[in-house]
């Protein structure tokens, strides 16, 4: 167990490698209750959230969710999150380490709305090709949900707020559950033959293979969404010439970068040898270069890929081979497309 964002979190149960492979082959259960669940309630909540998020919040139909970013005035990223339209309120799921900072921003900028950080609900993630079967054994209606759907389903006497989404590149669900029902639900899911508990270690290697950024490493206040390769998350309606263009923090820089391209971009990296290139590895254009051109922001071993994988920032347009400084040695690393593992969502 390790401390993280004020919670004691398990790094591994059976081992990072077997847990990772189990999620890709069958199904894994993650306790992600450290993440912040924030309800925004009140007339025009979606419209108001567009003052903070560069995505089309108004365009999220009831029963759907969308990936979004909380941006800063200089274009950097304060957090990344999911925003769902749950009918009479919007639900934001934010990073555990950022939830209190996010609340300060939300409360300050949405004074006319009720913004509540939920303290009475846990969050479980069930991920993997057999996640649907395992959850449907308890809640049959989830079979009808598609990727990025959100719905409330009853289990025993509890309302589960379920989304069909996750952070592994696999099909699966995130389940918001009242605290009193969290342990019974976790035990009921773990009782299914396909489901094993999964720790933070495999959560990190799974999302790395899926090419998903981790806030605090691959996304920071110094990195814009466009640099991070997340331009796809900004719908046309919020871009230049769109009906609800701009109007979010950092819009000038972010919209200019969308049109003209950023100076640096997040790329996949495939070390050519066996040595993993971890966070902080400096990248050079050639084995003798004095000045680095980029940095690894996440890196490790990809159990499904069967080789080391990493992601990092390099000057836009960089292709071919770079050299990573690993313990004083320059080792070759190929610039690669993300993701390393193609997602298998149920669309």
């Amino acid at each position: 167990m390790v401390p993280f964002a004020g919670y004691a979190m398990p790094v591994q149960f059976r081992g990072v490698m077997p847990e990772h492979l189990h999620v890709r082959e069958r199904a894994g259960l993650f306790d992600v209750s450290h993440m912040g669940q924030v309800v925004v309630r009140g007339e025009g909540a979606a419209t108001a959230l567009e003052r903070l998020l560069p995505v089309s919040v108004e365009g999220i139909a009831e029963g759907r969710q969308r990936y979004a970013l909380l941006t800063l005035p200089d274009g950097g990223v304060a957090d990344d999150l999911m925003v769902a339209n749950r009918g009479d309120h919007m639900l934001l799921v934010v990073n555990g380490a950022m939830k209190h900072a996010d609340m300060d921003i939300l409360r300050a900028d949405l004074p006319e709305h009720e913004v509540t950080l939920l303290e009475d609900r846990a969050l479980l993630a069930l991920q993997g090709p057999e996640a649907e079967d395992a959850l449907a054994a308890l809640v049959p209606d989830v079979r009808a949900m598609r990727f990025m759907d959100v719905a409330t389903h009853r289990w025993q006497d509890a309302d589960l707020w379920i989304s069909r989404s996750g952070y592994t590149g696999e099909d699966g669900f995130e389940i918001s559950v009242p605290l009193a029902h969290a342990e019974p639900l976790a035990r009921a899911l773990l009782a299914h033959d396909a489901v094993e508990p999964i720790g933070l270690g495999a959560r990190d290697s799974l999302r790395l293979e899926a090419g998903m950024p981790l806030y605090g490493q691959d996304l920071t206040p110094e990195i814009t969404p466009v640099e991070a390769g997340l331009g796809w998350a900004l719908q046309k309606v919020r871009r230049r010439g769109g009906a609800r263009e701009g109007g979010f923090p950092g819009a000038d820089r972010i919209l200019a970068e969308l049109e003209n391209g950023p100076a640096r971009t997040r790329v996949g990296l495939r070390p050519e040898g066996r040595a993993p290139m971890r966070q902080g590895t400096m990248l050079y254009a050639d084995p003798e270069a004095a000045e680095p051109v980029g940095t690894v922001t996440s890196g490790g071993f990809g159990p499904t890929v069967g080789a080391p994988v990493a992601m990092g920032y390099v000057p836009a347009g960089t292709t071919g081979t770079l050299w990573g400084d690993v313990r004083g040695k320059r080792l070759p690393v190929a610039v690669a497309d993300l993701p390393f593992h193609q997602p298998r969502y149920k669309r």
Partner: protein
Amino acid sequence: MKYTEEHEWLDSDGAVVTVGITEHAATQLGDVVFIELPEVGREVKKGEEIVVIESVKAASDIQSPLDGEIVEVNEALADNPGLVNEDAEAAWFFRMTSPTAEDEMGAMMDEDAYKEFVED
């Protein structure tokens, strides 16, 4: 067989000392995916970091347990680092000569003492 507090095992034939990590250490590390071994002929000091082990979780170092010289390394580990997880007592890392081996190893833990050390 003798053991260090750094979870290495040492096996001496009188002239050459063979060094590896214990099963306990291998279990703690998790699945080993990369091992960087020292060069044969390298003069090393006790406590010097001479092997890098990367598991899925993290990178760790192994220190030389003695002053001396590396005389052989287990190249099989470079190709198949998972051997450490399969049988840590068989998957030796390097062999070294050391003028102080006999004295120093005499003061190291034996198997029973190491078992107690790990349990504490």
